[in-house]
């Protein structure tokens, strides 16, 4: 538009505005094809001039030059017709006005010479020559015009004697000056026209460029609109999670379908309001400032939040808050993504309740079974026969097995629910390992398996729960005994790796059936049983190792395994070692627990 205005500026308009001569010149000069038009104009004037013969006293003195003049005019007009093609050079077209000049010269010679009424007609071809670019047409036109003016003298030399010299001299001078003026005007006009054309081209180029920019901008806008729509549709498709976006001041600008559904607030009620002014948001917004300071520092924050809906029901919600950043990376607002975990919490609570119920309901009858079996065994008045004692022993063994299974299941449930805690104290692993070896010895002896503990001179202390560590070592030792055929060996060693951050290592090696390599990874999964266990009908449910690993992890340790099928397996329990406690601090169990911790 700016260019269009520039083109229409006063200076531009001046280029178009001119007097009648320049208008004529402009028209004829700006168009290279105008040679025919100019000639038609000349020929018409010539024809009209013939009417002058009707004036009394105007007549052809010499007929031949007048006829020759007419013939030349016709020839010039026909020539102009053929020379009008754009391919014809300007210099060639210049011939037409020269022929016209000669034609007028002949007409003038035949109609009275110096005093001919037709002399004025020389002006038109002279102007026509003048509009041709450059000075060459004028240089050629000058002598031709002089020759034309002198033609009457050729017919009647006496004309010179009439004191007409002045006319012969001044005529060409005036015509030459006219031609020069026209030539100069034409030159200026041509230059202005060129400037205007250049400006017009520039204007068109800029307009095209502007159009291209507008098109590109429209395409970018469409793309942006499309991607915004897509983002909005994605956010709104999240119906089970609330997504609330705010600016820096906490004013809500995103409130998705999930938020409307979860919080019971319509989007049009939420958008534009400060998040601090929502009913039921107090718990969240009270700690918002400290909370958001942490979010600003870059870490997304997750918080638990209890939200009371309009109908009064309470929702347990987990809210993750992240910072929104602008192009410069500065915090521009916040995104709250809330997940309703009410159902999950309720499920966890019911699971806990179930676990507690099972714990009570299964352990209570087992308590009776085991307790009354002991009473039978201890009855001194009516002792059991050997056969009865064997039966009672079998019942007791199976009841204990059932009890262990129940304990393992409960323990697994605890680990899964994240409620597994250990009570940490300094524990001497020598005592723990010795106790495990001792308790497994009768079973090992019964199966014909040699179980021995490698001597460890120094006590090895770790920080942990002695009951749970005992359980972990028990599992490894009893597994090793269980999976080793009669005649095999199980060796338990306790040592340290001796490094700076020394670790206590308990290794249990057996010469048992081994574990296939492709099953090693799954070995610590709950309820997984190695194919060698099933193939050899070795009893178990596949919880022992997952429990052992959970205990190791709770002690910041790990369990490693190396095994060869048919050759044996080595399990290594690896736990960070601590310095021996100061004298006077008990390293064993707390007094109140010691009596019962390993009971049952």
């Amino acid at each position, binding site marked *: 538009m700016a260019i269009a205005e520039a083109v229409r500026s006063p200076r531009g308009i001046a280029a178009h505005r001119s007097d009648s001569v320049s208008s004529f010149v402009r028209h004829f000069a700006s168009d290279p094809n105008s040679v025919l038009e100019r000639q038609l104009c000349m020929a018409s004037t010539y024809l009209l001039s013939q009417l002058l013969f009707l004036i009394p006293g105007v007549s052809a003195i010499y007929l031949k030059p007048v006829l020759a003049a007419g013939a030349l005019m016709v020839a010039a007009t026909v020539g102009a017709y053929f020379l009008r093609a754009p391919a014809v050079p300007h210099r060639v077209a210049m011939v037409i006005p020269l022929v016209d000049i000669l034609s007028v010269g002949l007409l003038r010679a035949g109609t009275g010479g110096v005093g001919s009424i037709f002399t004025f007609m020389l002006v038109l071809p002279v102007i026509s020559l003048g509009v041709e670019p450059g000075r060459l047409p004028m240089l050629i036109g000058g002598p031709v015009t002089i020759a034309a003016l002198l033609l009457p003298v050729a017919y009647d030399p006496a004309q010179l004697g009439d004191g007409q010299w002045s006319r012969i001299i001044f005529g060409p001078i005036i015509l030459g000056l006219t031609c020069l003026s026209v030539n100069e005007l034409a030159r200026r006009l041509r230059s202005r026209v060129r400037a205007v054309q250049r400006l017009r081209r520039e204007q068109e180029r800029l307009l095209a460029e502007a159009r291209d920019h507008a098109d590109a901008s429209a395409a970018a806008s469409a793309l942006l609109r499309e991607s915004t729509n897509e983002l909005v549709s994605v956010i709104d498709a999240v119906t089970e999670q609330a997504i609330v976006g705010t600016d820096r001041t906490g004013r809500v600008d995103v409130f998705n379908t999930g938020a409307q559904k979860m919080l019971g607030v319509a989007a049009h009620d939420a958008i534009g309001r400060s998040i601090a002014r929502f009913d039921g948001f107090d718990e969240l917004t009270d700690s918002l400032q400290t909370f958001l300071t942490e979010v600003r520092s870059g870490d997304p924050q997750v918080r638990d939040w209890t939200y009371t809906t309009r109908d009064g029901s309470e929702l347990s919600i987990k809210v993750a808050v992240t910072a929104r950043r602008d192009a410069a990376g500065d915090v521009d607002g916040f995104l709250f993504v809330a997940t309703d975990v009410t159902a999950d919490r309720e499920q966890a609570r019911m699971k806990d309740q179930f676990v507690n119920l099972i714990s009570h309901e299964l352990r209570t009858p087992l308590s009776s079974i*085991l307790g*009354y079996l*002991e009473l039978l065994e201890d009855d001194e008045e009516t002792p059991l026969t050997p056969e009865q004692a064997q039966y009672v022993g079998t019942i007791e063994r199976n009841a204990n097995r059932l009890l262990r299974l129940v304990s393992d299941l409960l323990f697994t449930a*605890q680990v899964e629910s994240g409620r597994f*805690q*250990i009570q940490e104290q300094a524990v001497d692993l020598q005592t723990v390992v010795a106790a495990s070896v001792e308790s497994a010895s009768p079973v090992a002896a019964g199966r014909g398996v040699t179980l021995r503990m490698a001597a460890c001179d120094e006590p090895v202390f770790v920080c942990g729960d002695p009951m749970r560590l005992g359980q972990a070592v028990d599992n490894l030792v009893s597994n090793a005994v269980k999976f080793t055929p009669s005649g095999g060996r199980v060796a338990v060693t306790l040592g340290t790796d001796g490094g700076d951050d020394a670790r206590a290592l308990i290794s249990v090696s057996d010469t048992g059936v081994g574990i296939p390599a492709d099953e090693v990874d799954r070995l610590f999964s709950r309820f997984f049983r190695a194919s060698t266990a099933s193939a050899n009908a070795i009893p178990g449910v596949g919880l022992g190792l997952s429990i052992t690993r959970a205990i190791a992890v709770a002690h910041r340790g790990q369990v490693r395994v190396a095994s060869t099928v048919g050759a044996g397996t080595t399990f290594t329990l690896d736990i960070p070692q601590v310095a021996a406690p100061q004298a006077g601090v008990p390293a064993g169990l707390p007094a*109140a627990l010691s*009596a019962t911790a390993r*009971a*049952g």
Partner: protein
Amino acid sequence: MAEGPVVVIADDDADIRHLVGVAVQRAGASVGASVSDGAAAWQAILDIGPDLAILDVAMPRMSGLQVCRAVRADPAIAGTRVLLLSAAVHTTAIEAGLAAGADLYSHKPFSPRSLAMQIRNLLTAQVNS
């Protein structure tokens, strides 16, 4: 009236009550009352003023922990020893029992033989104190 120390037993399972009763007798004490819920246990403790109360943790009407706290809160019977008996094994349950003021926290299943020994120890400690 039975001779020696008197014990109140509370458990909602009759078989367990009987088993605990056997352990009490083997420890040389007598069973003052054997009841099936916490409120009855609290009443029996107030009525009898036993030397020892053996309480199940999970009982109807009043839990073993509540009875234990009530005993500790009443100066008149503050000297009563309390043994909590529970099927729960996790550390938090044990901590809660000891925090309520129990002298001993014992797990189910239990060996009547070991329980008799624990009862004897507790009663001896009481005599000594």
